[in-house]
């Protein structure tokens, strides 16, 4: 069992599935998605096995190593520590959920879609496992093309612009990282005479003094830019709103829930351990940018008319917590950052899925077009509420613990910074709950105003009067379906083609009454949609109440990183 290549299996099973789809006979329309589902499922199961078999310490486990290009010091080296384990399970879970989601929502060019999803999954999992800088870079770049294709082919109206922007931004950052990688390789070689790109060996170089102060300053920056684009940190975040909005739902989920974590992971795996002095030098800048990002993301989210863009900016805000937590140099901060990462994965993934549910029905994401969905789809509203509150950071749900720990750690670093950070929670509540109220509560179109409502607008009073007057004084509550009152018949809509691909205008839904969507014909959550939402909601609640198992897995690694940093920086 020692040499069983578990990690390679987890990473490459989706790629094998992709190859399988490529060779599947063109006629069968079920086979691609079945293969995709199968690969994702097995990968997920194996990742759970890996989680169960993981020892809670700071070592890298399940390592696999094959010499590849010895002249350049490159070997195929995989291994996981606590941080990687959790992120890999997150990746496989969310990929599985995305593929289940895409089951009936992607209709044309299915084969290419699932091939892209599976290749993307391989790239993502590989990034978390790679312990050789070259392999890391390969997996990092591997994700670019499938994601760009997913956004550009199956996305919304402005998808080509978003796809190209995403691609060029990320590529630019990665290329700078490449120079950093080679520079690190060279510095280690100059110090020890050994050519290697093995991360563990390069880390030993820190103690050997292979990396001078100036060197660390610049190479940290090179790596940092690549990860800052991915996180995304202000001011490198401008690709995110476009990419998230234009991507199809499943791709948005993966982008938000997994790909953003890679920036944080990269900072954790490379910038902190390899360049402790550089980290110390850059910390003030990073803390400042993080706090700006937190506030900026929240403020801009407040004014968004598009639901998905709102959630995208809230992601910018949340990821500010992550980078803040990582660089304030104490254990609470790092624990908090990790929990924020995981929680954000569940919550934002769930939020995008919920938005996807109503987008499938309405074909618009404009907040003002919605209203009163709770009365039509109570189950959906319940899920949406869970994810919404978790995103705000309500105690008892997963978002709270992480944010609290980060804020706590920031207090040790600088009380003023902590004050600002705490205050942003209010903004988060503001934009989220306001959006929630406008979309979920209120009056649905085609619905009569509530007779028992004591604060009717004059226009609403007129409507009620026109309907069949005389019901007004408190006797009964108005019914919520349209059948009873003669006048307010909903205009027939052809909505509900659940299978349509999203190639339409952003606001071009089926507006009926005052630009509102008619939601009366909408079914509540289908089985598939419940299947995708339930696990995330359950995880959010469970880890909101009891996050200790997660922390137990990652804390040894964090302590090792902190000790390494403190030893060098001289505490």
């Amino acid at each position, binding site marked *: 069992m020692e040499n069983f290549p578990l990690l390679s299996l987890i990473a490459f099973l989706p790629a094998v599935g992709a190859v399988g789809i490529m060779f599947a006979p063109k006629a069968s329309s079920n086979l691609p998605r079945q293969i995709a589902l199968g690969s994702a499922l097995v990968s997920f199961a194996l990742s759970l096995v890996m989680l169960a078999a993981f020892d809670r310490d700071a070592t890298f486990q399940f390592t696999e190593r094959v010499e590849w290009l010895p002249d350049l010091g490159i070997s195929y080296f995989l291994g996981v520590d606590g941080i990687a384990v959790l992120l890999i399970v997150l990746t496989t879970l969310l990929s599985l959920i995305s593929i289940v989601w895409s089951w009936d929502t992607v209709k044309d060019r299915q084969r*290419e879609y699932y091939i892209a999803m599976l290749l993307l999954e391989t790239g993502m999992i590989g990034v978390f496992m790679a312990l050789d800088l070259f392999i890391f870079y390969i997996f990092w770049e591997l994700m670019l093309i499938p994601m*760009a294709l997913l956004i*550009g082919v199956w996305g919304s109206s402005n998808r080509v612009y978003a796809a190209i922007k995403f691609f*060029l931004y990320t590529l630019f950052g990665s290329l700078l990282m490449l120079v950093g990688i*080679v520079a690190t390789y060279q510095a280690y070689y100059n110090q020890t005479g050994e050519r290697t790109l093995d991360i563990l060996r390069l880390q030993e170089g820190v103690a050997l003094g292979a990396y001078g102060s100036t060197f660390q300053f610049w190479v940290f920056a090179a790596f940092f830019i690549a990860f800052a684009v991915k996180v995304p940190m202000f001011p490198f975040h401008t690709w995110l709103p476009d990419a998230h909005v234009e991507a199809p739902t499943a791709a948005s989920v993966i982008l938000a829930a997994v790909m953003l974590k890679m920036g944080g992971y990269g900072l954790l795996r490379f910038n902190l351990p390899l360049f402790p002095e550089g980290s110390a030098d850059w910390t003030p800048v990073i803390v400042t940018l993080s706090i700006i990002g937190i506030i900026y993301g929240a403020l801009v989210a407040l004014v968004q008319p598009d639901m998905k863009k709102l959630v995208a900016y809230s992601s910018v805000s949340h990821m500010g917590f992550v980078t803040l937590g990582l660089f304030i140099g104490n254990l609470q901060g790092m624990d908090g950052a990790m929990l924020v990462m995981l929680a954000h994965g569940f919550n934002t993934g769930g939020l995008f899925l919920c938005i996807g549910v109503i987008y499938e029905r309405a074909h618009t994401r404009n907040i003002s077009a919605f209203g009163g969905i709770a009365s039509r789809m109570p189950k959906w509203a319940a899920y949406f509420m869970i994810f919404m509150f978790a995103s705000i950071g309500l105690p008892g749900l997963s978002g709270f613990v992480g944010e609290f720990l980060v804020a706590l750690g920031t207090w040790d670093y600088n009380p003023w910074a902590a004050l600002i950070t705490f205050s942003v929670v209010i903004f988060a509540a503001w934009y989220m709950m306001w959006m929630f109220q406008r979309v979920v509560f209120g009056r649905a179109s085609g619905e009569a105003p509530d007779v028992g409502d004591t604060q009717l607008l004059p226009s609403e009073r007129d409507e009620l009067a026109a309907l069949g007057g005389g019901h007004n004084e408190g006797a009964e509550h108005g019914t919520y379906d349209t059948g009873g009152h003669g006048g307010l018949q909903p205009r027939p809509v052809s909505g509900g083609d659940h299978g349509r691909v999203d190639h339409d205008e952003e606001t071009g839904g089926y507006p009926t009454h005052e630009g509102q969507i008619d939601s009366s014909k909408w079914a509540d959550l289908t089985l598939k949609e419940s299947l995708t939402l339930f696990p995330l909601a359950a995880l959010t609640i469970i880890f909101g109440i009891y996050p200790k198992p997660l922390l137990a897995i990652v804390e040894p690694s964090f302590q090792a990183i902190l000790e390494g940093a403190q030893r060098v920086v001289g505490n």
Partner: protein
Amino acid sequence: MSLELIVPDFGLVWPQFVVFLTAIVLSLADAFLPKHLHYRWLTAISLVGYSLGLLLLFGQNGEDRSTFYGLFRADGLTIFLTLVILAAAILTVFISASYIEHLEGRMPIGEFYTLLAFAVLGALLTASAGDLVMLFVGIELSSLATYILTAFAKRRVTALEGALKYFLLGIFASAILLYGMAWVYGSSGTTDLDEIAVQIQGVIAGQDNLDASLLLGLLLVIVGLGFKMAAVPFHFWTPDAYDGAPTPVTGFMSVVPKAAAFAAAVRILIQGLGPLRDDWVQVIAILALVTMVFGNIVAVSQRNVKRMLAYSSIAHTGYMLAGLAAYRAQEGFGTGDGDANQGVSSVLYYLLAYTFMNIGAFAIVVWIQHRGRGMELEDFNGLASVHPLPAAAMTVFMISLMGIPPTIGFYGKYYVIVALIDTDLLWLALAIVLMSAVSAFFYLRVVATMYFSEGQASRTQVQTPLLNVGIAAMVIAVFALGLFSTPIIDLADTWNGALTLAAQTTP
């Protein structure tokens, strides 16, 4: 000097000799075979000839030897470059057979293959040259054949214009190169490259500043070679020549003459003028920077895919020049790979990678031209929905040209960057990286057009088996050669042994 006749070691020249024989057989067959057999037989003869040359190459070991009075060198550089050039030749035959025969007014295929063979032969001779004269002969042979090949689509005005520009600038370049070689000969008293290195060491050992004649010779040689390899600012013939030539010829032109020019550059600058390293490294580095910046930035504005690929060729020349600039002379040469100089190896590796990905990109253009489409970006609209496999192949070549792993283009760039940082040319490494990001824009534009736009069906339905095989082979090579880089890198490294001859004969 003794007058003994030294019998040349013919065993060393078998690959080149086979190519020469192929050229002869092709011209004879063109004259004597009945017309209707030409296409099949001549293509077969070409392929057999080049493949045989490749096979004979594997029979040679890496020992450094010279023959023909030092005119011919059989060392690691020869072997590697012969491999690259013959591979390029085979791929060119694959992609050009059907094009020359059927498209653009039925060009004479016998003459095409013969000229191709001579162009290949010239390049091979350049790669294996041990002497300035041989270098010039090889370059001239290759260039003359290529000038004519450029004009092959003679009914198209752009073809004639491009060919004329290439020809005129090319002969100027050859004259400048020859003049530079004359000055070098004057300063050193010999045309044998190893001898030149020895003599020059003596010359510079004895004085505080360098002889102006030597520097002039160096400069003129760099200018002459710069024309041949399409470096900026000697590139002005490139866009028109590449645009005017038939597309498969463009693919050939972007690789083989460039490989020959780089072979000449390595031989002259490193083997011959190695002691002047400090003088020419800065020049080459600046040339590299200007070339890659210009090539990438102008390519962004191109709407014609063929022209875009022409400017991208210029950009890749820049990357290769950067690898060349990373040369560092080794004192007291050792045998371990620990101190191997990676500048030249990276150039060689990049040439191999470049062969596959560039000819591949042109092959796809040939493919769509066969189906009645043109070469503008609009002709690629929606290709992915109409012809998914060629679109996927083009995507592979585009991402390889961009330098994205796991394709071979990435390994090439990576190797060059490693070599540059090894010799503290960090600014050039950063330039490569930034320009790669810029290049992503126009490469990605092709991919985006293929996948994201609406397209229409092709006008012509035609079978192109040989072309398809070639494209498939190149796609596989782009992925596989990256994965199995080690033997290639080892082969590229064997060239470092060539320096020992010069170093050991120092008086």
